[in-house]
């Protein structure tokens, strides 16, 4: 009975020694700097930096081929630590957050037809450019939610994509995925946003969606000069000089509002 145990133990010890010797004398020395940088990376592999993933970007930084500060998902603390390791100063970039510029869910926006196809916005665009009556509206099939590496986008039961800012890192994957181009990256410091993308006239918009911007210009008058501009019947916030949060109370359709949402439940909680 003891024989197999002895044999296995002997084999184990032999391999352990062999591996130790190979690593000691033949192994390639790993750059400790690269390891340190990789540990500080967010590890989401979102590709927002332009490299294939976190590992590739860390290698490029360690080899001096790239500068720190390109990672949209990294907090400023870690960015500063990496800059210190590399001995460079990092320009502080404004943290960004994604917003879905549409408020028209099933309760307020109408649809032209019943869509019974592939459950993906980009597929839905092949047929009738999506079934939503408003051509700037969120199709509500969740391509952005599937693309988000941080699970920060939630599809409401009324088929509208909502970004949870506390989870969003601003990597921009959803922006590239959305076939309607209604997801935007905005500075985190801005307090209020216009949740509508249609520059059509107010009356036309009203026919297809009850929650769009009607272009009444109340917010423009309440804000300081140059903070809010009009693109057709759509209020556009100048993010270089964002207006104060109080202005949101002026909006009659509640389309100008804060992007803060009720925190998303984590997966474990939802499963329970």
């Amino acid at each position, binding site marked *: 009975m003891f024989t197999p145990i002895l044999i296995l133990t002997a084999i184990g010890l032999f391999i352990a020694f062999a591996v130790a010797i190979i690593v000691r004398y033949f192994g390639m020395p790993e750059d400790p700097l690269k390891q340190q940088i990789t540990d500080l990376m967010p590890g989401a592999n979102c590709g927002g930096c332009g490299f294939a993933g976190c590992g590739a970007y860390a290698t490029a930084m360690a080899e001096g081929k790239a500068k720190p500060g390109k990672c949209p998902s990294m907090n400023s603390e870690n960015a500063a630590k990496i800059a210190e390791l590399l001995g460079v100063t990092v320009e502080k970039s404004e943290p960004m957050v994604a917003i879905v510029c549409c408020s028209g869910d099933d309760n307020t926006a109408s649809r032209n*037809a019943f869509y*019974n*196809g592939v459950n993906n916005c980009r*597929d839905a665009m*092949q*047929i009738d450019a999506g*079934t939503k009556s408003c051509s700037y509206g969120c199709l509500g099939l969740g391509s952005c939610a599937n693309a988000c590496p941080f699970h920060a986008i939630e599809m409401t039961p009324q088929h509208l994509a909502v970004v949870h800012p506390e989870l969003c890192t601003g990597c921009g994957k959803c922006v590239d995925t959305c076939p309607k181009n209604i997801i935007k990256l905005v500075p985190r410091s801005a307090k209020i946003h216009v949740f509508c993308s249609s520059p059509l006239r107010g009356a036309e918009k009203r026919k297809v969606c009850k929650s769009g911007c009607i272009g009444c210009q109340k917010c423009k008058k309440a804000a300081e000069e140059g903070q809010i501009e009009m693109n057709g019947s759509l209020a556009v916030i100048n993010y270089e000089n964002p207006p104060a949060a109080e202005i949101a109370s002026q909006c009659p359709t509640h389309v100008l509002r804060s992007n803060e949402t009720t925190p998303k439940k984590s997966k474990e909680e939802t499963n329970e």
Partner: protein
Amino acid sequence: MNKSYQFYGGVHPAQQKLARKSAIAVAPLFPFYTVPLSMHIGAPAKPIVKIGDKVLRGQMIAEAGGFVSAPVHSPTSGTIKDIKPCLGVTGVKTPCFIIESDGEDKEYERMKPFSDWQEADPKKILSRIAEAGVVGMGGAAFPTAVKLSPPPGKKIDTLILNGIECEPCLTDDHRLMLEKAKEILIGIQISARILGVKTIILGIEKNKPDAVEVMTEQAKDLPITVFPLNVRYPQGAEKQLIFALTKRKVPTGGLPMDVGCVVQNVASAFAVYNAVYKGIPLYERVTTITGTPLVSPGNWHLRIGTSFADAIRLAGGVKEDPAKIISGGPMMGFSVYSLEIPITKNSSGILLMSPSEITQFQSKSCIHCGRCNDVCPMQLMPGILSTQIENECFDLSENWNVLNCLDCGCCSYICPAGRPLVQHMRRAKAEIMAKRKEAKKDTPKGKASK
């Protein structure tokens, strides 16, 4: 030349040709016509009339916008009310003329007919076809004049007349062959003369025995072979039809002219006859309006620009609420949500489906049965492609030749798991084409792109 060949794959959908017995009727005048500027492949036509102008039937209202383009003619006499974007079959708004009819239907000065087409200069006939706005009326709407002028290097030896009509439900080509056989045959001979081709083959499926009989009778003394073929969808697709009749295979990414063939639909041949022999431009076509919810399905000579609502009213309206309205046939048509959509040069049919006829498929996992591989007429592997496309690996699916897909829908038809295979392929093709377009834009002019 007494043998037909069987192309790979294909399916046998239920025929349901409800309107096969009803003769082509002439539609009355409607108060409004919506005529799109772009009814063909290629550059959209350029308007040459202004809002408020009076136009006559057959008057050119938009000229060709490039070499691959076709002019547009007014379907009736009246006033141009507006030029604005209107909904098209694909759901995209394109610029359209809104023409209000004055009820008189006065004809514009007709172009000089070539009654001596056997002697006339082929180049002149060709420019007449271009001027009359004739396009391929089988579905793709490729300008016929461009098709009939192959580049100098290509030698064309066979002209194929397509009377297959493999789409279920549609009967417009069938009725046209029964009623206008002589005219179609003159039309195809005109095309043959332009191309300088001696061999003309007419392919008809055997489910239209009366059309085979009529065409054989009419083509008796002409250099035209009538070829009855076994029924199989999609035999009417160019590449499949060429193989079925000549056993030639069109290479990947190639055109029928690469194997010395040109395929023309019977409706296009009829339009060529009208344009050349009679001098009438293309502003009217035969359209099947069919479906079980309709009171009286049938075939009509409809003016371009007639709205779907007017067309359905012609067929007596509906007995029950349709669940789906399709422009074209059930296999390749587009389902539409508005009845304001106009009939265009390539609308071969309007199909209404009752709630009991449609099924709402729940897409399930692929069970790897391989039936899609058996039926794909282009010998692609739709099951594997759809998995690639679901995971957005478009580069990979491009290597697997997704661009060869015809959109025929055989794979979706046969799939026991109800997977939307052809829909996936359509998306992949759209994404790959969009990417290529972008790459072209990014490459500066003068530099060769890879």
